[in-house]
């Protein structure tokens, strides 16, 4: 699935970022690399753009670009991130576990 299809409050893991080079490079440089947990926090009043929480940072991208970001649901999205299988490249603790 893509990030554009996620529901608010859903916890996801980034799998792949496509799209234009400038965009994906900037996004990756912000820490948005494959394997990173990300949460869809909310959607702007007109349905676009969307707000994400990633590495403790809130950022916003447009829905059109979110279509380029492949994600999968974090296992037990409701229960916490402990059982999320994480690729070696992102053996980092999930930062969004104990919020809300």
């Amino acid at each position, binding site marked *: 699935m893509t990030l554009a299809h996620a529901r608010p409050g859903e916890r996801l893991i980034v799998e792949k970022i496509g*799209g*234009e*080079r*400038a*965009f*994906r*490079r*900037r*996004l*990756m*440089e*912000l*820490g948005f*690399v*494959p394997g*990173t947990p990300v949460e869809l*926090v*909310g959607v*702007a*009043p*007109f*349905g*676009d*753009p969307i*707000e994400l929480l990633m*590495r*403790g*940072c*809130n*950022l*916003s*991208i*447009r829905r*059109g*670009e979110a279509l380029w970001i492949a994600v999968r649901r974090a296992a037990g999205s409701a229960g916490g991130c402990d059982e999320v299988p994480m690729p*070696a*490249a*992102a*053996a*980092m*603790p*999930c*930062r*969004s*576990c*104990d*919020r*809300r």
Partner: protein
Amino acid sequence: MNERQADASPLVLVIGNPNVGKTTLFNRLAGASGRVGNYPGVTVERRPGRLRLGGDGDSDAVELLDLPGCYSLSARSAEEQIAINAVLGRGDDPEPALALVVVDAGQIIRNLYLVLQLVELEVPLVVALNMIDEVEGEGPSAAAIERLFGVPVVATSARRGLGLEALAARIRECVRRPPRGRVAIDYPPALERDLATVQAALPPGLRASAARDRALALWALTSIDEHDELRDVDPGLRAACLAVRRGAGGRDLDDEVIATRYAFLDRYAPELLARADQHLRKRAASERIDRVLLHPVWGFAVFVTVMLVLFQALFSWANPGITLVEGATAWLQEQMAAHLPGGLLSDLLREGVVGGVGNVIVFLPQILLLFFFISLLEDSGYMARIAFLMDRIMKALGLHGRAFVPMLSGFACAVPAILATRTMERRRDRLLTMMVIPLMTCSARLPVYTLIIGALFPPAVGWMPVQGLLMVAMYLFSIVVTLAAAAVLGRTVIRGEHVPPILELPPYRLPDPRSMLRMMFERAWVFLREAGTMILACTVVLWALLSFPRPPPPSGVPSEVVRQHALAESYGGRLGRAIEPALAPLGFDWKIGVGIVGAFAAREVFVSTLGLVYGVGEQEDEAIPLRQRIQAERRPDGRPLYTPLVGLSLMVFFALACQCMSTLAVTRRETRSWRWPAFMFAYMTALAWSASFVVYQGGRWLGL
């Protein structure tokens, strides 16, 4: 640069991500010594200053240079290239002795990405672990970062003034003994081979140690491609990068570089952070605020209220200041008229110089107020939310979400509004916004509308308040035209590459009054110094146009008649007559033409110039004599000149024409070129002429 060569004190770059308190820290370290300017060729603020804290005089002098905020050194445009050029000493500044990297303690991993790049490049650096007050003991440990990179780390809070003395001392020490950091990252073997290829293509001027060459190759690989807009890239290096990219097959080089660096940082995250889930109280509080401020209903209610206050402030709170400046100018001119001997020189001083200085200073109340609000919105974090809320609407127009506040300010005055386009990062977004702002109904158009509507239209027909409706219609007209112009220009003249915005929503913070004041006065000063001189010069030229050649002063005639005659015979008057053929299809005669020439100083001057043209003296827009005079004006064949249709045509002309030298002056200053103000003047005048033509000829065809 020249000043620097003279004293040659070591240069320290202040570099860091956006929203990490970099500029506040710079201001604290440099005191009030900063002088803002621009980087050559790009409209990006260049802020040098001198380290003021501690030290014992000249032997310890250190120059600071505040770089624009950046998440990474990789670049695709000349604007982004500033950072890497400054780090390498390849810009207009010498090679820095040290880089002071400001990092946000609450966002440490992402901030260390930039530190990592600098360490790879073997840049001597000191890290300021800033906003340490916000992490409340849960933050990253300075000692752990020192161990990881082998560079000094000082915990600071620029806002609270914590750790500044220690930081200044550390900077002075490190300028004398540059600390060499170290970091060893194992990139994938295939990438290492690519790096070797690129490294071999580095021009001799760029080569230093092997490690630094490799870091430069990494920079080149992640920055250069077929579509970049970088400047002065060595052709050999570019060719090597393109060849490597072509030969990479299915591999994603950016991913290999960036993901490997983040994997490295993530591996050390447990050591760096006391608590792994760095969800700070600050963030949690911000999220609660956002639940209201980004709410579909409440969020918009708050947004509309904030924008109304901002608009009201620009529109009316600035008035006492404006009245004061205008009053002082008029008083000074009267005093000069009374006490100076008459003659050319004193006329020039009074009307040209004093009038011109008044024309410049009169903008200050609005500029100061607008930048008070902008720094409040920026520093509190609400500006990012405005961009978030408005992005959907602004996107449809091809504009950036951040264009909203400058556009709104355009209703008050285009001059501060154009200055406010600075809040946008990309040149293309700034240009497009600047080009359409002067189409908004600014307050200087109101006296013109008031005069025309008051003189030519009945207050009401039946139950319909004609005058009020017309005023509203003029506002709506300008909004529609502005948005249409943005949509058209954004798809034609100012196309630019589409770079999707990535907007950071920083936590809400209390703005620092000192930073706000500093920003207000910096903006005001830059305006006075750079746009002000041009406005002054234009005022003098315009005065000369409307005053020469000077007829011999006749006696026995009222002064209004003398001035009327002088104006008609002046170059400006002749210009009005010369352009009459072009204005006739719009329903205007040469007297209106003179008014239009005079209004170039500022639109409201149309009213007083018209007063002079008709020999009723300089008039206010509410003045009855001028209204009656206008109603009485006849064409040669006896028909009234000012019909409601001519009035409408004139208002449409004023709504669209770029009748404002100050707008052009400030556009020249913000775009650093004559091309854009020339384009602005040309397209708006063409638009105004065509629209007035359609209104007048269309109206006549309809038998109005």
